[in-house]
């Protein structure tokens, strides 16, 4: 029980090492190894869930000294191996394991270089879980960066036609983001003192210490009590912007989203699932875990900007999705649109908005996974993703039609599905914000609501074009058989259908996790922002 989070990270890591030792001819061994590792994680997660106490915040904390360097007159540099989960990260860990399970099943028929594929998949798994559980900024950064390489190769080797371009673009964009984060990371650890260090100066990477203004060393650049201005803005405002844009690239936020459609279109189905369902969440997670708690006053100062970016993402993403000819590209843009809601909810800094944002992360994680499986199903049969090359599929593939219907309706925010709950809460928060804390104007919430209509439009239009009317398949796929979903595909698709339905009609179990986190979060950000802005 004590080291359960470490085991969650270690299991896939060891699995990946074990995969290197198995001779590459034993193809099925790798599949079972990967699946086995994720199943072990699932068991560990159930244990975690049973012992979780919603009333206390961060728990299952593991702390071990990792780096301790004496820097002479600078004091001591200290980084800990510090893990923990709270009401936001626990559901995300669950989501990661669930998505990894689906990704494993979805990769079952990967043909080329199976050994490399599954060891990279397990490596990616370990670093994603690590990112969601690390509470030490350096440790977080380590996991965050470490996701890049496996992802680069997963897109670049097993991807589609333009996979090389897509993988490089993905890597450079994300690295640019993480460099922005690194700049602030350096400034933060040099400015923050570990209060538990006996007397002497201990520079720490601990995020909890970073969120407490009392721990800042006076006269350092990021010291909130002693504002240093660089150009037009204070140093802390710059730091906020750097971090915000660093994570916003990953989110992705318009106009920093251009890597996403390319990466999605050229990644294979399981990689797309992981990318949309998990990697995008890490951007949002960083904003919730790091940016807002550490720079509350700057977050409040820039809340309108964040909200505007959110609304622009919602609207632009929806319009771009409507214009997409490629099914996968449409789904990728729908991700941009949906992640805009996360930004909007966050910008409102109300309990409803933040709860909605986290709910949207989970809901979108499940739904986008599902959408990419569905796109993959079609691509596996025909190697063609152009929407206009299909019509009347409903009669030929009834089961496929039903699942697409569920996924699309859930994604466009139909009541009784999880997306509805999330979006309604975000909008509630956005409408309430002006009266409650005066951060964002109602007009932005109105615009976001219009985004919902666009969302409905592109999903419905796609259904109409592809599934209704007389059966016809154009292009290369013309002569191919179009069998309905097989058992493996049903195995991947039915659980997310059930989950999105349960969380759509009975959100309370999930809210029990998120709500305490959200109210603590809002409380911290608003009170700290008031205190810190009161300073001259």
């Amino acid at each position, binding site marked *: 029980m004590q080291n359960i989070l470490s085991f969650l990270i270690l299991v896939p890591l060891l699995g990946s090492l074990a995969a290197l030792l198995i001779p590459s001819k034993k193809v099925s061994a790798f599949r079972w190894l990967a699946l086995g590792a994720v199943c072990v994680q699932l068991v560990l997660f159930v244990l975690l869930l049973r012992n979780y106490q919603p009333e206390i915040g961060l728990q299952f904390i593991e702390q071990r000294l990792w780096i*301790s360097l004496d820097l002479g007159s600078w004091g001591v540099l200290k980084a800990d191996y510090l893990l923990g989960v709270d009401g936001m990260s626990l559901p995300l860990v669950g989501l990661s394991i669930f998505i990894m399970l689906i990704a494993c099943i979805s990769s079952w028929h990967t043909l080329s270089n199976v050994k490399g594929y599954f060891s990279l998949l397990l490596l990616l798994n370990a670093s994603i879980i690590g990112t969601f559980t690390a509470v030490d900024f350096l440790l977080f950064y380590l996991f965050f960066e470490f996701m890049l390489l496996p992802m680069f190769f997963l897109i670049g080797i097993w991807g589609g036609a333009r996979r*090389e371009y897509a993988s*490089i673009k993905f890597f450079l964009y994300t690295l640019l983001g993480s*460099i922005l984060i690194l*700049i602030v990371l*350096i400034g933060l650890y040099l400015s923050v003192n570990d209060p538990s260090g006996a007397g002497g100066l201990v520079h720490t990477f601990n995020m909890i210490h970073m969120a407490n203004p009392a721990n800042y060393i006076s006269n350092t*650049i990021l010291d909130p009590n002693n504002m240093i201005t660089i150009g037009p803005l204070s140093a802390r405002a710059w730091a906020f912007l750097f971090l915000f844009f660093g994570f916003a690239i990953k989110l992705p936020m318009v106009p920093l989203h251009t890597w996403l459609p390319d990466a999605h279109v050229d990644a294979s189905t399981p990689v797309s699932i992981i990318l949309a369902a998990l990697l995008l969440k890490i951007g949002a997670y960083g904003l919730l875990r790091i940016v807002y708690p550490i720079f509350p006053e700057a977050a409040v100062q820039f809340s309108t900007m964040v909200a505007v970016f959110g609304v622009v993402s919602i609207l632009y993403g929806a319009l771009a999705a409507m214009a997409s000819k490629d099914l996968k590209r449409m789904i990728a843009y729908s991700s941009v649109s949906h992640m805009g809601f996360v930004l909007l909810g966050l910008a409102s800094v109300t309990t409803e908005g933040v709860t909605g944002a986290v709910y949207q992360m989970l809901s979108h994680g499940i739904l986008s996974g599902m959408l990419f499986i569905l796109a993959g199903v079609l691509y596996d049969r025909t190697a063609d993703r152009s929407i206009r090359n299909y019509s009347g599929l409903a009669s030929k593939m009834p089961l496929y039609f039903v699942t697409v219907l569920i996924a699309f309706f859930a994604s466009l925010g139909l009541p009784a599905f999880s997306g509805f709950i999330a979006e309604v809460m975000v909008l509630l928060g956005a409408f309430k914000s002006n009266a409650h804390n005066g951060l964002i104007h109602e007009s932005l919430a109105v615009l976001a609501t219009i985004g919902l209509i666009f969302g409905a439009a592109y999903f419905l239009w796609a259904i109409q074009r592809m599934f209704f009317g007389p059966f016809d398949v154009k292009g290369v796929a013309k002569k191919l058989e179009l069998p309905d979903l097989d058992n493996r595909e049903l195995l991947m698709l039915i659980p997310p259908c059930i989950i999105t339905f349960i969380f759509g009609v009975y959100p309370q179990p999930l809210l029990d996790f998120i709500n305490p986190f959200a109210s603590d979060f809002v409380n911290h950000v608003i009170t700290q922002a008031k205190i810190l802005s009161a300073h001259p």
Partner: protein
Amino acid sequence: MQDQVNTILQSFGWVIPEIILCSAFLIILVAGLFRLQRVVLLTLALITFASVGAAIVTDLYTTSPTLFGMMHTDGVSSFVKMLINISALLTCVLSIRNKGVHRSEYFAFLVAIVFGAHLLVMTTNFLLIFISIEIISISSYVLAGYFFDKKSAEGSLKYFLFGSVSAAVMLYGFSFLYGFTGSIDFATNEFVSSLASSENSLTYLALFFVLAGFLFKISSAPMHFWAPDVYESAPAPVVAFLSTVPKLAGLTVLLKFLFTINLGGQSPLDWQFYITCVAILTITVGNFAALKQTNVKRMMAYSSIAQSGFLMIGLIVFLPQGVEFFLFYASVYVVSNFLVFALINSFEISGTTTIAEYSGTGKIFVLTNVLLLVGLISLTGLPPTAGFTAKLFVFSALWAGFQQSGNTILITLLVVGLLNTVVSLFYYLRIPYYAFLKNGKPAISHNILSFENLLGAILVLVLLILFFQPGLLMSWINKINFVL
């Protein structure tokens, strides 16, 4: 007279490593006369560097002037000397399978360069600086041409021409400085006080002349033009050697010189600003020029130019921590650089020299390419390699320097330097990109690279250990008492 002789004899105790090097140089030259096996020469060189390294490590922290102040043994110079010997040792190991380098002169010149580098890091005397730089340069000119073909000769000649001119400019600067200050040793109080009171703008011109000479040695922009041609045409072990040993020696003397002329921040000329500009220029020029390269060694030349800029960061904050982080960065740079060159060398022996020729090698030489990937990732500065820790440290120094001086150029360098990391990733990743992602038919089809793999695996292990436990090295560096 008797006293002087006694002092000289006592001083010999502090220059044992240099004496070993001198003798080894002669022994290897003489051994060449007897048509010995190459293994014997190689072993001689290995023994030399190993014993010199051991002699340095035994008293790493002693501080003492020797030979009437011509040389100073101190922690920083001892540490750099140790790195230099490790580099030389690795160079010899790398040369094992290079058929072209069988002559005794090859090893003799390596020893000579190491000897020159030793002198350079230990002295603050202008004359000795010039002599040691010439020892390094002349031997390097020869080594650069060691393929003995037309291209190699061209590279060597270019190196020679650039080197002579920059040495002449530096000597010109020395003569001015001697005239203005009346001292030939820049560590003396006489030099410092005359520099502080000097109002003559020619003094600064002279200082810039001297700096130009140092910048040439560390292949820093705008004195970097020789590097790509030389690197492209020289054998890979020589390139690995030239991109570390003279660079580290040059940086160490630059460090001492900069700390002197900065006059503790009292200098009327803002040296921090100028040197930071040089670093920004170096990093940017190196990285952007590397983007277009098709030859691996040419790309590594620009990479080494960019790395010079990163190495300089430790010097320009003018803080003792900066020096410590410079030493850490230098150590990691040596390991990553040799890791990359060891594997490049193994590909070069089989005839793979352009990046495009790496196509498809990732499927056959999986381990070699994975090791190479780790080395390149470390040069980029990504976790989980020590390259990340080193970058984190030097940029921390930069941030702290900004905190102390408020010089906004430092924060500019911080942002430019880190954004350049993204650029550098693009070209560092090109080899793995071709190796793993592109399909092609490699020149060799079966794995014969077992020796390089072993060496590479050891170096990768070092990089990983230094990432997870940087304290192992830093606690060592921490004990160094930084005195000028």
